[in-house]
């Protein structure tokens, strides 16, 4: 197979795949060489089959459509008509027309999606804050059970706002944040922390940091220490607290 050197993201469907092929083969979308594109398309489908991936039925429908167009193109044009040239010239439908129309329509929205993505990124540069808690200010709010005029969407909207709000992290780990925290360093720190509290500490108390990275590294450090048998992790019974202990003689 020829060079697929472009790193391709997953396709969003047969139209997306076709657009990709059209771009890659530098084909004029208004004059698609159906035989060539069909062949290329089928190569993709076959590869998917060989890899035993589930192929969405839409891909197969499109394969059939391409083959149908291909055979239509091969048919000699209006053999038997007693033709009235003017009308025929205009009425003559290119079998590719419908597909081309769909591709172009789809391409418009694919581009529009790109625009949206950019807008989303720009918007994400702006930071907001949660509404202040003004509940002390309110007089006894109407506490009676009145009809509530809200929709499910209002509720989902509020939830999304909450999720979108950026999480403040303090104390900050400015430049350190992007760096990997060496596990060895964390291992030393865990041992030191344990020694400071008579060699034994609640497992949860080892996780003092807020950043996900630090939590992960701490966890890995404890695992590593267990493997080296430098610590013992004990639990009195199911769901009880875990304790980490420095192993004897270490």
């Amino acid at each position, binding site marked *: 197979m020829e060079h697929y050197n472009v790193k391709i993201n997953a396709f*969003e469907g047969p139209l997306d795949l076709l657009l990709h092929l059209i771009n890659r083969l530098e084909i004029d979308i208004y004059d698609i060489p159906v035989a060539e594109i069909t062949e290329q398309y089928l190569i993709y489908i076959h590869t998917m089959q060989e890899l035993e991936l589930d192929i969405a039925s839409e891909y197969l429908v499109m394969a059939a459509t391409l083959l149908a167009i291909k055979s239509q193109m091969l048919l000699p044009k209006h053999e038997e008509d007693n033709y009235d040239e003017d009308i025929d010239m205009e009425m003559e439908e290119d079998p590719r027309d419908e597909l081309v129309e769909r591709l172009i329509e789809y391409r418009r*929205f694919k581009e529009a999606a790109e625009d949206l993505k950019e807008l989303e990124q720009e918007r994400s540069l702006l930071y907001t804050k*949660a*509404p202040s808690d003004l509940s002390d200010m309110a007089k006894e709010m109407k506490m009676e059970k009145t009809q509530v005029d809200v929709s499910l969407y209002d509720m*989902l909207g509020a939830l999304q706002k909450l999720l979108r709000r*950026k999480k403040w992290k303090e104390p900050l780990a400015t430049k350190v944040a992007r760096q990997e925290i060496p596990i060895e360093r964390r291992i030393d720190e865990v041992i030191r922390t344990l020694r400071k509290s008579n060699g034994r500490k609640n497992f949860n108390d080892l996780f003092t940091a807020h950043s996900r990275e630090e939590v992960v590294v701490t966890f890995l450090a404890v695992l590593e220490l267990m493997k080296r048998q430098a610590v013992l992790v004990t639990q009195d019974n199911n769901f009880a607290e875990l304790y980490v202990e420095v192993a004897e003689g270490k």
Partner: protein
Amino acid sequence: MSKKENWKAILEGLLFAAGDEGLTLKSIASVFEVSDQEASERINQLMTELATNQGRGLQIIEIGGSYQLTTKKELADYLKKLVEAPSSHSLSQASLETLAIIAYKQPITRIEIEEIRGVKTERPLQTLVAKALIKEVGRAEGNGRAYLYGTTKGFLDTFGLKSLKELPKLPDQGDEEFEQTEADLFFDTLNNV
């Protein structure tokens, strides 16, 4: 504080307190006991002042008819150091495409969206509803009475749009379209010779 003299300070405080819930013109007007027109003039004046004052780090944006205070975008680099990115990931390609179709063609049914995309679109629709970016806005006429989808205010907020009118222009049918028409015209002429 006097409503008349210190309206800027008051408005700033109101916007601050409202946070990302935003303030509608109506609530501004009602606090100041002025007309919507007057409220609009005030908010616009403050908006311009904040935008042009280099010494200020905040700005006012308008989203779907309500106003909120945000940091200026030039500050993003500094803020990134202190603030974790929001937990919700950005949208997948499938969701973005679906959303684009809905944004430009609303109200629209699932079937119509699938015709354009050429693939099943249930999952992206579910995601977009759950993310409160789209909602069911009615039922189509005819058999099936399928749900019609449209965008929400959360959509405007996520993409920083004042209103749907501010959506970027939908790309044309294609650059070549013009040539095509010209060619058609040429052949039409030819046919009529």
